[in-house]
């Protein structure tokens, strides 16, 4: 027993002397520190729609003033260029976007449909039709007086622009037109929450798993160099476990301390138990890989693939099983699934 503990001590020293293992182990506290230092994004529930106006004029200025009045809920954002609008819609920053070509106000007022307004959407757009209705509603409200002025000037003598505009505003404001009665709470204040989306827990689990894979690698490399030739099969298994433990222990200890500092609300004992159980799972999985890929040359070739699949299939950065349930069983082949 003492010889195994001594072997564990020596192998831990060996593991920590390797730059790669040291980097892996230190990655956990480093990411935790980085997360605290980088200013976190505000999570807002505003729905942003982009507007790009090719050649702004007095007509479009009135429109943009009205559209950009609201700062919560459905918000219209002015984009400086079409490229900016397209990029933001493509990347999902804006739910959708509208590009008004040059002289569009004239087109709208005259009811022409040849010069169209482009609505840009992406597969992630959800509220483009609502934005379209809102935009049209705003345009109608601003340009309705001009539409009526045009009708009057075509059919009657005289200039009635100012008169019509005043009358229009009066009717609009005195509730003599069609309205809806609202009861209940339709207000929704967009909450600006500081949201930390960096998966520090999942990353800790993944790094401990990768360390366990390196433990097997070290064992198989030693085995290929005939270091364990004098040992019985049973002792070889024990030394394999010692090698894995030598890699996993430093990562688990550093991970535990980091998570305790990072999240002070966490139950220390529960986390400790969780870590111990997870370490056991990692060791078991590593032994399984060792049985599957018995040779050093085979294992070192397959190791990057195992890490790739662990990154893809386990819910570290993205939970693919949520969108592709069929992969759930495959993700169970990797220990981080259980962290």
């Amino acid at each position: 027993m003492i010889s195994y503990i001594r072997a564990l001590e020596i192998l831990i020293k060996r593991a920590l002397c390797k730059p790669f293992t040291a980097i892996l182990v230190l990655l956990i506290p480093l990411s935790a520190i980085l997360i605290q230092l980088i200013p976190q994004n505000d999570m807002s529930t505003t729905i942003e729609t982009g507007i790009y106006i090719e050649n702004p004029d007095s007509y479009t200025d009135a429109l943009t003033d009205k559209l950009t009045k609201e700062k919560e809920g459905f918000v219209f954002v002015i984009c400086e260029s079409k490229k900016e609008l397209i990029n933001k819609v493509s990347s999902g920053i804006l739910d959708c976007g509208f590009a008004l070509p040059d002289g569009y106000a004239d087109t709208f007022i005259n009811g022409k449909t040849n010069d169209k307004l482009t609505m840009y959407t992406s597969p992630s757009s959800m509220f483009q039709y609502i934005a379209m209705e809102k935009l049209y509603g705003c345009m109608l409200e601003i340009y309705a007086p001009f539409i009526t002025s045009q009708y009057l000037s075509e059919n009657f003598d005289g200039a009635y622009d100012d008169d019509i505009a005043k009358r229009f505003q009066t009717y609009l404001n005195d509730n003599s037109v069609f309205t809806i009665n609202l009861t209940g709470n339709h207000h929704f204040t967009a909450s600006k929450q500081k949201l930390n989306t960096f998966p520090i827990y999942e990353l800790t689990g993944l790094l401990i798993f990768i360390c366990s894979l390196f433990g097997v690698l070290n064992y198989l490399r030693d085995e290929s160099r005939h270091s364990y030739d004098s040992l019985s099969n049973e002792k070889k298994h024990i030394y394999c476990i010692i090698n894995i433990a030598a890699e996993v222990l430093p990562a688990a200890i550093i991970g535990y301390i980091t998570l305790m500092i990072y999240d002070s609300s966490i139950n220390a004992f529960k986390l400790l138990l969780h870590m111990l159980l997870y370490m056991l799972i990692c060791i078991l999985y590593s032994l399984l890989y060792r049985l599957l890929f018995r040779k050093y040359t085979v294992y070192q070739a397959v190791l990057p693939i195992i890490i790739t699949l662990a990154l893809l299939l386990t819910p570290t950065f993205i939970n693919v099983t949520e969108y592709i349930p069929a992969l759930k069983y495959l993700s169970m082949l990797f220990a981080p699934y259980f962290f």
Partner: protein
Amino acid sequence: MFAKLIISDFKRIRQLMIPFAILFAALLLIMITLVRNADKLVYQNKSETVNIGIIMQADSEYSNSAYNMISNMDSYKSICNFIDIESRDEGMELLDNGSVNALIIVPDNIVSSIMDGTNTPVEVIYPEDGSLQTFILNELFVSTSSLLGTSQAAIYSVLSLCRELDISENDFQQASAAINNLFLNHVLSRTDLFKSETLNVTGSYTVIEHYTAALIFLLLSLCSIMFMSFFRSHNQAVVNLLKANGINRFQTALSQFLSVWSVLYLFYLVIYILLGTVSKLHGFFSVSINIKGLVLGILLSAMIAITAAIVSRLPVSLAGCSLLLFLLILMTAYTGGLIVPELLLPKIFKNICPYTPGNTILRFICECIYQ
């Protein structure tokens, strides 16, 4: 001697074909599953329909056609699900238990009140707790009602002006009909003012096309890691003896490179033909089998084989070389927008992405294989 070395290397690599094929097939299967569902992974938003209870006591032809017109509007169809409710009490109960997010009560005389100008308002009842859904619904209702309100305000202002101008009754009726038609046509044909363009986060290629091209590169690159042991399998004695026989390190490396290149190209052809076949059968994308695609395979395989050969020569252990190559592949893929599309990358990487080798490779693959 050099020819014999090449033959020997081909014989050696032949033994790696079966494990390579197994690994290749396993990765291909997983990656195809991910690519096939790439849309879901990239665009993770799920739009949920909102239930709206509607109590419409009016049963006239006008009311029904108005209801049909509104419920068929794209803006309503995209988020709303209308549920007909018999009575106010039933509606309030459904509102309280959350079965509906809003309750609309349409008055009996809705159409006649609009036509005669009394404009009996439609009642919309929301639950006590405001939510994003109720907010969105409210935006929708207000926008729709404002179309009518704005049109009415414009029509009323014209008619009030016409009354003051003291025109004949006939002219007044004509003006009333004309202005009503003007705004009715304007509102009803409002969708004709817009043309829709769907953008992809992956640029001019669809998400599936983008990730299929990425799959080709990633699959070949990741599987090339398997050849590290092949590149480093010569012991010092073999190296010395080769040198004694006039074969220098470059020739040794060249011989190994030729074998790896051939295998990678062979597997590239397998993927290429498979994609071409799927393209013809299912039409997820349009991969064409042509000379450009075949030449692409030669260049791509050569590039991957050279990279693997160079990394294998670094003065680190075998496992170190494999991991270094893996990190290099990962970095190339990430900065090139093969894993996360360029537009979704962090700002620093987004700026350099178009100039990275990964992005160049991706664009080149897309240009060569897609029609």
